[in-house]
């Protein structure tokens, strides 16, 4: 084959590399614009995060180079080993984690810290790819489906135990991969229903919801009346769905809000749907105390973020002229809220280009995945696309008030070594696998 005759660098997918470079460049620009002051004379200053991010970029490119030089087979062969190590690290972190802003998801000493949950995304992607691609696996059997789901969700459970809900939720994106690989539609439908029912529970009065569910079930029963007349199982099924929904909305959700979720998470969920937290869910409320309406922290974040993005207009305020982001009105604007600085300085035009870049990268990776000869590479490609998609969609949605504020980064843009490095590794492994797309990897 002609392709195989080229050197390894000649076989890399140019478009993916270019999109990667473009996003990293946008990220550095955004961090620079947030931190730079006109009074600064020295650009190279280790106290500034853009300098440190630049160094991390160097590290990432070096690691990327190592990955390109590595044999493709290596990645499938270490998949299970790395997954095991990852799980082990996550367990250690639960007990030995450093407390950073209320979460125990970081390992390390002194100034060197890293988040195992971040790195574990790579290991889990590899493991899922390896599992689904192995000839012994038949994903049509229930047993293998359960194993696949367990592989994806085991790290999530461990990360949840570290009180880093946002990162744990990322692992749910592997359902998208498994959907591509043959998970029944019912999973998506049930998942969608659970989310919808939860939202309805929060938004509607519980008796109104009770009535609504009952009406829907009765309408369904009327439509299925012929089936129901003949089939007892169907009657039981419908009845149990009705009971399940009612129990979910009246018992389970309040239970979760009262006992499982933490105060800040409840605040975030309610601030996203634009409602006040009901008195019954207020954790720090003393008995008999009156409810005082106040702006909670995450609402402030989202407000400031919306002001920053909204004030950008069509063309934006111009590079280094973002009054909101430059002057630190938006908290966490280097990391989780980095999109604000793009939205403010480059306006709708800039946001459009950025969303376009992400969409191109994700679609390109799916395109790459679909052209792989080996099953392993394809599944892995979908994993990368799914992780990127979840991060991209949730991060931007939370800055514009479409999703609750959960602390996850914008891939390749947000400041932070762990995040940049792990996304670089994810993408470079995909690029490496793609360069060997004619080879069957096992």
């Amino acid at each position, binding site marked *: 084959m002609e392709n195989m005759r080229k050197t390894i660098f000649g076989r890399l997918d140019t478009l993916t590399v270019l999109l990667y470079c473009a996003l990293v460049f946008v990220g550095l620009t955004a961090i620079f614009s947030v931190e730079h*002051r*006109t*009074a600064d004379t020295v650009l190279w200053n280790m106290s500034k995060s853009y300098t440190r991010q630049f160094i991390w970029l160097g590290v990432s490119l070096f690691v990327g180079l190592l990955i390109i030089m590595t044999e493709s087979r290596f990645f499938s062969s270490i998949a299970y080993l790395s997954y095991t190590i990852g799980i082990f690290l996550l367990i250690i972190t639960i007990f030995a984690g450093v407390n950073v802003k209320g979460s125990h998801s970081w390992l390390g000493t002194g100034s060197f810290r890293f988040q195992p949950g971040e790195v574990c995304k790579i290991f889990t992607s590899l493991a899922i790819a390896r599992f689904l691609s192995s000839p012994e696996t038949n994903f049509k059997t229930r047993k293998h489906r359960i194993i696949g789901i367990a592989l994806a969700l085991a790290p999530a459970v461990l990360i949840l135990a570290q009180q880093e809900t946002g990162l744990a939720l990322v692992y749910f994106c592997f359902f*998208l991969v498994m*959907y*591509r690989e043959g998970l029944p539609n019912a999973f998506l439908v049930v998942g969608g229903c659970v989310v919808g029912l939860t939202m309805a529970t929060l938004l509607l009065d519980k008796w109104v919801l009770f009535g609504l569910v009952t009406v829907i079930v009765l309408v369904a029963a009327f439509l299925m009346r012929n089936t129901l007349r003949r089939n007892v199982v169907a009657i039981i099924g419908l009845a149990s769905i009705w009971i399940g929904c009612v129990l979910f909305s009246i018992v389970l959700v309040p239970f979760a809000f009262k006992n499982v979720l933490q105060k800040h998470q409840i605040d975030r969920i309610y601030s996203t749907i634009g409602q006040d937290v009901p008195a019954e869910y207020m954790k720090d409320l003393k008995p008999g105390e009156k409810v005082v309406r106040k702006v909670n922290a995450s609402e402030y974040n989202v407000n400031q973020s*919306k*002001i*920053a*993005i*909204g*004030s*950008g*207009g*069509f063309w934006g305020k111009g590079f280094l*002229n973002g*009054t*909101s982001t*430059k*002057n*630190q*009105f938006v908290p966490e604007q280097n990391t989780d809220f980095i999109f604000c600085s793009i*939205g*403010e300085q480059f*306006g*709708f035009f800039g*946001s*459009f280009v950025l*969303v376009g870049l*992400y*969409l191109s990268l*994700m*679609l390109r990776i*799916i395109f790459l995945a*679909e*052209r792989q*000869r080996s*099953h392993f590479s*394809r599944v892995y490609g*979908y994993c990368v*696309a799914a992780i990127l*998609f979840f991060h991209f*969609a949730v991060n*931007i*949605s939370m800055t*514009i008030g*479409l999703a609750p504020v959960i602390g996850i980064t914008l891939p390749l843009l947000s400041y932070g070594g762990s995040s940049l490095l792990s996304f670089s590794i994810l993408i470079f492994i995909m690029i490496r696998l793609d360069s060997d797309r004619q080879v069957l990897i096992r």
Partner: protein
Amino acid sequence: MSLAQNPRQYVIRFLLIGVAAVILLRLFFLQIFEDKYKIMANDIAIYRKVVYPPRGVIYDRKDKVMLYNQVVYDLMVTTSNVPKSFDTLKFCEVLGMDKPTFDKLLHKVHIKSGPRRQGAFLEQLSQEQTARYQENMYLFPCFELLERSIRTYPNASAGLILGYVGEVSPAMLKTERYASYNQGDYTGMNGLERSYEEVLRGQRGVHYLERDNFNRPRDPYKGGSLDTAEIAGRSLQLHLDAELQEYAEKLMANKIGSVVAIDPSTGGIISMVSSPSYDPNLLRGRDRSKNFSKLYKDATHPLFNRATQAAYQPGSTIKPMTALVALDVGVIGPRYGFPCGGGYGYCGRHIACTHSGGGHAANLRLALANSCNAYFCHIFRMAADAKKFGNVKIGLQKWYDYFYSFGYGHPTGVDIPFEGKGLLPDSAYYNNRYNDVWNSCTVVFVGMGQGELALTPLQLANSMCIVANKGFYYTPHFVKSIGGNEKDPVLKPYQEKHQVTHIADSTFEIVQLGMQDVVDKGTGKVAQLPGIEICAKTGTVENYAIVHGNRMKMQNHSVFVAFAPRKNPKIAIAVIVENAGFGATWAGPVASLMIEKYLTDSVSSKRKHLEDKLYNAHLISKYTYIIDSAQRLKDRLRWEARQAEKKYSDSVQAIIYNQKAEAWLRKNYLKNGGNR
């Protein structure tokens, strides 16, 4: 391609595109559809900083600085920047304070400005503190010296003329004059600082700065392209002679009264004293309000500008003007004599004259020189009763017109605020007062400067300019040029020549010669200066006050007016010393010494005894304090009564309004109800 064309890959692609579309749609609404975020971003992020240019400097006629901006240093600190390892001991040693004071001041800044904003730790460091601190500055990087300027008066004189600056009060902000001011701005509160505010303050600059989430100003907004530059205030040059002013204040020390000296050829005020005066430096910087209330409560009223606000009966000093009127009306000639035998008895009562017999009023010059009361009472009556006017009411109105044109009875228009207008009665005034039944005898005292006539010292000095100039004057004013430009439009009203009624030059000449006789051989010999023809008139004004409920005759006010030299006059002066005695005893020497100093630049050694006499005199009446406290009590009672009355009338008004409103409602309600 093991699973060719799996349909689910397209579902996933559509999901990706769909989510991106939702995000873009939301961004479209947020960034293009909604305007409120742009407004909110500007509100929170842009800080409008007003930059104050330096105020204009004020110079005297000899370019000596009278008022300038002194640079002082404030020590600023941001409390959160003070490290735990801060060398408090050394810092306290440098500034000469102790540890508790340091802690107290730091705590105050913390409370006032918050932990992250800069606040003033110590204001107006002394020179020694500044020097010591600057030497050790590198040790305390968290502190910063901030330069600031305050108005300073190097001479400690002319306080009421120069005025002072103060913060605009909320009540002032509501008026149109202060529409362009913000709370916390400084403005001239009195004197030239107030009347030339527009000139002195220059133009404020506005700088737009970005601010951060802790409200700290940061970079210039849009690179400073929207900023307007500040324009420095323009300087004023005065006609005032700082040296003479200081000398006059020294002569008037420990006396109540005032001195006004004007250059008749320009109307420029050379000196204006209201005694007791105060050190204007008291009313600047931190202690202003404290010192102000102290000065305000002082029984001698140092904040009251007697030179422009107080009205005195002019006494005999009005006699030259009475003579001018009588001559111009034509009822007497210069040789007209009056057989004064020590008093004037034509009006059914005896008006005493200090002289008797000897033909001391045999003609106008003699009468002026000897200040004969009878003579001037008589010629005043003659003028008022002149046949050509028909009756005394028209005659007195004519006299009023003459005096009005001499600048009496209305403010002269001097360029410092709050000028009084004195008192000049016209026929309507007397009609009102005497129920239409009065004649020239009723008002005869006015002819000799007593009775209902009252002038401010400035009016008195200004009328001397008229006599000196033989019939014209310029509005008295202080400012000679603005920013070096004498033709500034602001100064135009002061360069306009005011011609008084067309009295002939020869008439003025007669009066001038009479006034020269006052000095040469009359009552004002004290003012004689070798080689200079001085025209003057003494005045001794009877006055009464209520002490402990009794009307009591107080010691006479000593008044003296003069101008010199007679030909080509350079200075016209009016001096009043309250409750001092004869005009020639106290006011005369003051005027004379000032004329000498002004015209010859020094005071001859022969006249040192006069200076010493004045320096050592303490002429503040012992009753001043009693009268003042009684007056203040009266003022307070009157104020309280007025408040009570206002409260009552307000409540009555409110009841009336309520009733009207109720009636209106009832009427309209009933009407509507009826229509239905």
